């Protein structure tokens, strides 16, 4: 059961993740958790090496293009270049990360950094290099795990929990087969959580802000962070100190965001950037449906369409489909209203209602 924060004005206990897990297995005089974690990472690295020749999805081409884009073109053109259909739709820290990865790339294969990306299939040196970048970025995940492992004894965190992160099959499939860079992002998230556990809320908040600037998908965790940090970091210390802390936290977060977005504010590209980051024109659903609530919405729409057609109403069959991955404009719904863009049209003026 998670420990509840005490309601007294005294220092609130930091976040306890470990109490959610089961009791640890019996101890032996075997190696430390850190050594075992490194061992597990090495074993996973061997498996990742074996995954190099497996199937690659279009995400491979996406990251290949971004690598070339950030290397060959100046930052001014990163969010406006349209030489490929796979436009850059991650926040600037990820673009900087791609730039970093592109630095050794010309030594591996000169065509890795050509814009526009050559149509020829990638050479094996190319594939190996990109796969290895994912494996190397997982070192950040290992670092966070080692930090968590240091604390493991004190917090009764069983080794199995750490092992399951390093050997997570979903992460292996998505990162090393399908091709994405979630490993190091998870590492950042775990780092942030580690700081929160230690009571270093400011550090945790700053790291989370950096994470947001790398992949805005983590915005879904932002409300929780906000509430926790507000309650834990700012409240309970009196108005003056609380306000001071709020300003401090806000300043930290704003500083991180400034580092990321300042160049693009200067170029006046914020509108373009936001439209790239939040492509509502793509529709409610991406190519492969995530099992979430909107599935029911679609199914309801289909059933209604079917019934109404049977009853004699003329309902058009929409041209747009639910399963395309690219940005489009027309409505895929037959009966029910197109949901999000109507609600969000003030924020997305290019969208037709």
């Amino acid at each position: 059961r998670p420990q509840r924060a005490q309601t007294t004005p005294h220092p609130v206990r930091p976040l306890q993740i470990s109490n959610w897990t089961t009791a640890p297995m019996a101890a032996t005089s075997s190696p430390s958790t850190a050594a075992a974690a490194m061992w597990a990472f090495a074993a996973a690295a061997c498996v990742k090496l074996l995954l190099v020749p497996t199937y690659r999805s279009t995400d491979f081409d996406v990251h290949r293009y971004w690598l070339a884009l950030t290397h060959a073109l100046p930052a001014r053109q990163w969010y406006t270049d349209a030489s490929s259909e796979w436009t850059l739709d991650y926040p600037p820290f990820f673009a900087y990360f791609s730039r970093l990865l592109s630095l050794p790339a010309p030594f591996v294969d000169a065509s890795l950094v050509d814009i526009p990306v050559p149509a020829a299939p990638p050479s094996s040196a190319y594939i190996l290099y990109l796969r290895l970048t994912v494996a190397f970025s997982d070192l950040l995940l290992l670092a966070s795990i080692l930090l968590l492992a240091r604390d493991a004894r004190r917090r009764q965190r069983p080794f199995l929990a750490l092992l399951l992160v390093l050997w997570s099959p979903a992460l292996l499939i998505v990162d090393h087969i399908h091709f994405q860079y979630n490993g190091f992002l998870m590492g950042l998230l775990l780092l942030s959580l580690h700081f929160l556990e230690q009571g270093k809320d400011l550090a945790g908040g700053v790291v989370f802000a950096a994470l947001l600037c790398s992949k805005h998908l983590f915005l879904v965790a932002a409300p929780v962070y906000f509430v926790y940090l507000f309650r834990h970091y700012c409240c309970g210390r009196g108005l003056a100190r609380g306000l001071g802390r709020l300003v401090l936290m806000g300043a930290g977060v704003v500083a991180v965001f400034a580092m990321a977005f300042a160049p693009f504010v200067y170029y006046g590209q914020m509108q373009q950037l936001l439209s790239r980051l939040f492509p509502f024109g793509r529709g409610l659903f991406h190519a492969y449906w995530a099992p979430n609530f909107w599935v029911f919405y679609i199914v309801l729409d289909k059933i209604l369409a079917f019934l109404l057609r049977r009853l004699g109403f003329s309902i058009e069959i929409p041209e747009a489909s639910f399963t395309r991955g690219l940005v489009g404009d027309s409505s895929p719904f037959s009966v029910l209203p197109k949901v999000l863009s109507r609600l969000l049209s003030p924020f997305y003026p290019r969208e037709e209602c």
Partner: protein
Amino acid sequence: PPGTNQVRHQDLPEAKSPMAKPKKSRNSAPDPSVAARLPWQPSAPPLATALLISFAALLLRALVSVGPYSGQGAAPKFGDYEAQRHWMELTLHLPSSDWYRNTSDNDLAHWGLDYPPLSAYQSRLHAHLINASLPDAVALRSSRGFESQESKLLMRWTVLSSDLILFFPAALWFVWAYMKDGVGGSGERREGWTWLLAMVLLNPCLVLIDHGHFQYNCISLGLTLGAIAGILSRNELVAAALFSLAINHKQMSMYFAPAFFGHLLGKCLKRKYPIVEIMKLGFVVLGTFALVWWPYLHSYEAAMQVISRLAPFERGIYEDYVANFWCTTSVLIKWKRLYAIKPLKLMSLSATILAFLPSFIQQVKSPSNLGFLYSLLNSSFSFYLFSYQVHEKSILLPLLPASLLALHEPHLHGWFTYYALFSMYPLICRDQLLLQYISVLGLFVLIYYSPGGNYGKGMKISSGTMAVLSLPLLCSILLHTVYLQIEPPKRYPFLFDALIMFICFSQFIILTLYTNYKQWMLDFHPRPVGSKKDL
């Protein structure tokens, strides 16, 4: 002292005993010293752990299978993959009398069948399976050199399924028999069974050859391993039958024949009516052979046709660069130029017999389970080093008993596996399996040195020996990169292959001298108190 690493160990599965209750109750106060518990440390439930290790081994094999096979894209001859596919095509469409004969449909020059009939039957079974989904891959004549993603998947699955059906159960049976009866050691050996199972199943050479290069060694080695397990658990007739099947699948399994023969003979002689025992074994062996060779027993010519395909002496005493005696010494003594084939055959035969004679005699005199494992290693090694027409892949044969002895000789096993892999390095490079090589070697090293594993037990090596051994190790590591990056000089285009061969041979010689010595010394050590009698 052994056993301090583990808090408690549990006896291994006697089938009826329930799982020991190893875990503390979940509601007790959490243990302050949480340690890293890996699944193969004792007090893990045995069946689940064995399944876990088997699944991990299966995963490794499946992942290696994604890589290239031998002769991929190399028209017109291709490689072992095409050979196996071709045999499936032959055995599916032609009658059995034509399998070993040169006919218009069966061109023996393009990968003619050169394994005994059980291989042919296995090819036919697999051909039926492939024919059901992809007939184009095994169509007569038109499918020569057929390569596609689907056919690769199907062919890889034939190897994986053979492995699962034969090798894995044999390995599990072996570990079970090893632990149940004890192999010359007292109870302390029992706790390493998970590590032993991992060593047997994660044999890197076997994985790379079978699932990378593409062969079916898992079948003959699995049958042999089953026979070994049968001997350990005192089912000699079953063992004899399984070993005869192994010989009938690949004639190279004969490398183990002196060990089986010596051990069984020794055991029979110690029994009440030796002649009866020998005759029982003889019947089983002859019966198995007759069953397998049935289509060819009707005439002398048919049988000789098959046998001539199995023993191609015209190909010379060695081919390519293999780390055995003849090839290595041919740097100094040009055997092929000095002698014709017949005297060379005689010389290699006598050298081989001399080499396995000590271990054979030891087993006949005083058969024991542990001695049997050593004699398997010694006899297969003697064949590898001195026999005629040995291939580099034959190192798999001595490697099997070395992995079975992993608990008794952990250092030897690790050392031998490394050099066996190294001796296959040129082959790996030719097949473009470098990534898989590195990965499988890495995993082997990690499991071998796994925290809480058993590598530390066994013989203690003095620092002087370590210093001496590290020199070839460093040379070999250097050669790994040199072989790939640097061009050999024009006068000696195979310089690096020869160097690899030389280093491996030197280590193998030391190794075989050591194991022969150990087997002889078994007779002079008093038996530990409490071990069971083997007879």
